[in-house]
């Protein structure tokens, strides 16, 4: 066992962990159930969280390496996400919804890095988030509509 200290959704946390505990399992054991395991081979993006503001795959990072860093999950970013998730829902973009938390986390990272992304930039940034229901067009339309509404003064919208 070893001790780590990190910040989880803004709150400092100290924990005893095994050296090979993955961040994903650490987060779920601390109540962050939005973080899910999909492929477990670093391919699907379902387990995306932010580390010091950057999107990473929690299935592939040792919790030990997260020591000293700030981790954010969807549980801590509900307000920021609320702005655009309605636009995604309006498009019926999710069907089973399993990919949604990873997708939302990475969209947050995209919008922070590129506030006015082009379609190509959206596709490129979200290429690592796999969805096996919908074929991605609905998500793209949802993000486009959100950007459009923001440009027009951000009237509230969404399902």
């Amino acid at each position, binding site marked *: 066992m070893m001790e780590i200290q990190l910040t989880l959704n803004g709150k400092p946390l100290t924990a005893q962990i095994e050296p090979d505990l993955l961040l994903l399992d650490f987060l779920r054991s601390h109540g962050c159930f939005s973080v899910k395991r999909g492929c477990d081979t670093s391919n699907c993006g379902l387990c995306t969280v932010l580390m010091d503001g950057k999107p990473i*795959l929690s299935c*592939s990072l040792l919790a*030990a390496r997260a020591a000293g860093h700030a981790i954010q999950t969807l549980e801590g970013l509900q307000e920021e996400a609320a702005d655009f998730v309605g636009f995604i829902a309006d498009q019926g973009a999710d069907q089973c919804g399993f990919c949604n938390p990873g997708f939302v986390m990475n969209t947050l990272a995209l919008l922070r890095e590129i506030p006015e992304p082009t379609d190509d930039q959206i596709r490129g940034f979200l*290429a690592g988030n796999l969805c096996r229901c919908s074929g991605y067009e609905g998500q793209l339309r949802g993000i486009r509509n959100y950007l459009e509404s923001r440009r027009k003064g951000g009237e509230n919208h969404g399902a």
Partner: protein
Amino acid sequence: MIQIQKYVQAESLEQAYQLNQKRSARILGGMLWLRLSRGSVGTAIDLCRLGLDTIEETQDAFILGAMATLRQLERHPGLNAYTHGAAARAVQDIVGVQFRNMATVGGSVWGRFGFSDVLTFLLSLDTAVELYHGGRVPLEEFARRKPDADILTRIHIRKTPGRFAYQALRVQRTDLPALTCALSQIEGETRAVIGARPGRALVIRDAPGILRDGITEESARAFGAYVARQTPTGSNLRGSAAYRSHLAEILTRRCALEAGGQNV
């Protein structure tokens, strides 16, 4: 997934090197490849506290720390200006942004993976690796060596002015490439690098001087055919040997035209 008995954030390269001399020890890069292997690691040696996570630009070189990520490589303005965007193009389809925020340049080069976009791209530049014990070694020589218990600390890219291009073909975006191709013209020397053959990337020089008098549709086509003849290819799930040989010809031609300033 590997099991790890002990995890150490090394405080010096010497400590990391000493720990790494045990057969059961492993250096951790981004751990993306490593975690997929089976078995047990005695000591996992993390280099994350050694300041190796930067890309430095000096007057005559780019110095990439082993822990710099593929995303840093993709977004580095100086490196992309120097390579005309080839650095970003080489890595931008590797899985996803989240993955590239984790995968390291050091782990990518150390792994000497046959499919590697990173190795293909770096071999087209004037690149040397810096090893903690082994000192500086040209990347072309390093790529041929077998892994040992040394530590890759940095990658040096000499900033000799030149022309660069990168193309790869994937059956599907974010998949492993079916073939990778980089081309450079540095100090009068033209190199094509073909990777994902599926074997390790191979450097092919323009020994017959096909592009010596300039890059035209015709000379680019001839160079593509020459490179394809020089490149051994094989078959796997992502493509047959014949398909790869065809791709080697086409991608080299496109790279030559791109380096020659044409839109392809």
